[in-house]
């Protein structure tokens, strides 16, 4: 684990740059994280990010795309438009949560 400076704040990140401490995240940080991957956050992005944050707090796991669609009510197609090519990974990155992984 390393410490990175994002939006003038020191935060803990893993080797791929995903934040590792839930409480270090803020909306300002999210905007900077999104800018890092070329995304300008709109209301639609925020809806997805807020669902991820709330769901993680409740369940303790980063929700899958399927869950964001089924429970968060955002169509998968739309998630691909908002966070092109890699929505699961990009949403987790911006929301300051671990990326979705398999068991190996």
């Amino acid at each position, binding site marked *: 684990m390393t410490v990175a400076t994002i939006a003038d704040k020191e935060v803990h990140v893993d080797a791929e740059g995903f934040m590792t401490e839930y409480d270090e995240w803020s909306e300002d940080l999210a905007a900077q994280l999104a800018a890092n991957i070329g995304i300008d956050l709109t209301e639609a992005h925020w809806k997805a990010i807020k669902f991820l944050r709330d769901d993680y707090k409740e369940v303790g796991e980063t929700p899958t*795309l*399927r869950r964001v669609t089924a429970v968060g009510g955002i169509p998968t197609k739309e998630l*691909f438009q908002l966070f092109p*090519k890699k929505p699961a*990974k990009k949403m987790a990155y911006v929301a300051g949560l671990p990326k979705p992984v398999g*068991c*190996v």
Partner: protein
Amino acid sequence: MRDKVELVYVTPLDGAFTKPVAAGRLGGMLDDRQIMMEPDFYIERVDNESKALISYDEREIPFDLLVTVPLNMGAEFIARSGMGNELNFVPVDKETFVSPKWPNVFAIGDAADLPTSKAGSSAHFAVEVFTENFMQLARGEEMTHRFDGHTNCFVESGDGKAMLIDFNYEVQPLPGKYPYPVVGPMSLLEETSINHLGKMGFKWLYWNALLPGRKLPVPTLMSMAGKDVNEDTEVKV
């Protein structure tokens, strides 16, 4: 024959191996076998007319022969009961299997939403913890046992070899020896013939020791003994 066939491994994750240590050690396995990979692929539909997989972001992968792993979901009766999540698994505490909504409801094995593999080993270890806890509960005592997410499984890799992985909620698959440190005889996160023999031997053990309820010589909770922790600085022991 093999050089006339093109194999493509398609996954919704960002690689075949997603945990850092496994990815570092095994990342070359697909290349070695000349298997191409298409990561971050979410299948929207299978077009049987043109014989292609089509993703939500309109990528297409043509196929002659398609082998799919269907989404692993819980039972339909869980959906009907209204107790399940979007995958028909009952949300429960990952250490005690108690539902946070209904304190008299437990879910284990393929019925539970535990954040670990839906592997037989995981269910087996979980049930050992559950049994101890449930007996305490029945006696009116506090439940003191906690499941750590311990799972292990063989991964057959061809040519008479297999890999073995052993992990829990906190500790990712690491290299080392299993079940005993140094002597093994099986090797973790490595392809060996002995691992394959271990898998074949487990078939016999499954029917003759595991199902009759005999205690196997492996710990219920994951052990760090035998694991090489140097590769992972974030290991929590």
